[in-house]
């Protein structure tokens, strides 16, 4: 590492072992979205899982609320370099949702109201690693942060945690979603800095 920026470092922040490489801590909750924020009412909201064979399981808001709900305490990491520690969420585990279908698929495409998509391997969605979350810090999730419900896959960069999520389409092969077609990594592990192409 030869390049040193002369005089830099006077205002440095505390480091923290929970911080992946190249990230900084924030207490705020910045918003990153490619377009306007969709406004989806709970009574029009639906969530569906569709398999590679065309089988579909779907839930209304009330049906979704009747599923087992989990409390999630986790750190989150955005590819734009901010991380937020010890956030609290409530949501339904993706394991619970996948229990409703039979599939041999290995990948999923998350689809959102407003047209956003993002691809995630099923092994990153199973095993208690991912949720469809509708509460943040004890309050209903704000629309600008993805409410009524967003995917929550906190061990990957946060663009994988699709806001305004309305379903998962299961796929035998990986395909790029929205940001994955626009310069960002297919997988997105913050600890190995899988940021860009």
């Amino acid at each position, binding site marked *: 590492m030869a*390049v040193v920026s002369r005089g830099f470092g006077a205002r440095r922040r505390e480091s923290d072992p929970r911080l992946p490489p190249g990230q900084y801590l924030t207490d705020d909750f910045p918003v990153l979205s490619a377009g306007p924020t969709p406004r989806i009412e709970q009574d029009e909201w639906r969530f569906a899982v569709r398999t590679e064979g065309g089988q579909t399981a779907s839930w209304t808001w009330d049906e979704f609320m009747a599923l087992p709900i989990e409390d999630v305490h986790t750190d989150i990491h955005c590819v734009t370099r*901010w991380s937020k520690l010890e956030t609290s969420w409530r949501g339904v585990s993706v394991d619970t949702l996948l229990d409703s279908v039979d599939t041999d698929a290995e990948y999923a495409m998350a689809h959102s109201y407003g047209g956003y998509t993002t691809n995630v391997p099923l092994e990153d969605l199973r095993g208690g690693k991912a949720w469809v979350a509708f509460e943040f810090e004890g309050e209903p999730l704000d629309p600008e942060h993805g409410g009524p419900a967003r995917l929550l896959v906190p061990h990957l960069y946060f663009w994988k945690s699709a806001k305004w999520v309305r379903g998962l389409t299961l796929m035998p092969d990986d395909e790029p979603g*929205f940001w994955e077609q626009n310069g960002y990594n297919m997988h997105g592990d913050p600890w190995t800095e899988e940021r860009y192409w």
Partner: protein
Amino acid sequence: MTVGGWRPGRVVEAVAATPSARILRVQVPGWPGNDAGQHVDIRLTAEDGYQAVRSYSIGSYGTSETIELAVDEIPEGEVSPYLVEDVQPGDELEVKGPLGGYFVWRPGGEAPVQLIAGGSGIVPLMAMVRAATDVGAAGSVRLLYSVRTPRDAIYRDELARRGDDGGVAVTWRYTREAPAGWADRVGRLDEAAIRSAAWDPGREPIVYVCGPTGFVEHVADALVALGHPPARIRTERFGGA
């Protein structure tokens, strides 16, 4: 195009743009060029090896190996105060990019273009103003630029000059304090102001909005209310630390 690794860059020019912002020109040997609207990661390394990385929009576009950044100082920040107050021509830093393939403008589209900036959100839109002007498309581009006071406008002189020369038309919005003799209302950008300044939704413009989160949320909602299809509104928000 893959992004590749960190490239060394050298600051070649640092010019005050507003009381809190500076325009930096950084020479990056091997820079592959960038589209208007893209951004970079900037990495700073202290003498003892401590590093910090932040993302900044690029105000320039094209094939030049010298890129232009305009950085607004965040008082509690650790990187922006260095870039605004401390860094001098000749100093080195590292650059990764160009990044982002969506909030970009490329020549060749038929639709008119509406740019709406809040504060330092002007930077990627300035690259679009320059790019459109250079291909003779300035007549199809309008810019609506919201700033607190005239002093807070990055690129004020260049935008005025380009407007006088028949370039991109600029409508200013002052939220706190306007120049002497200003006839329009002073205050937050509202639906009426957007309707009168922006391309009509019937012209099917593509709209780029960049600024702080609250500004972008507010403007994007107003655009949707005015009848602009959400799919034709591209946003870039910044905020937080």
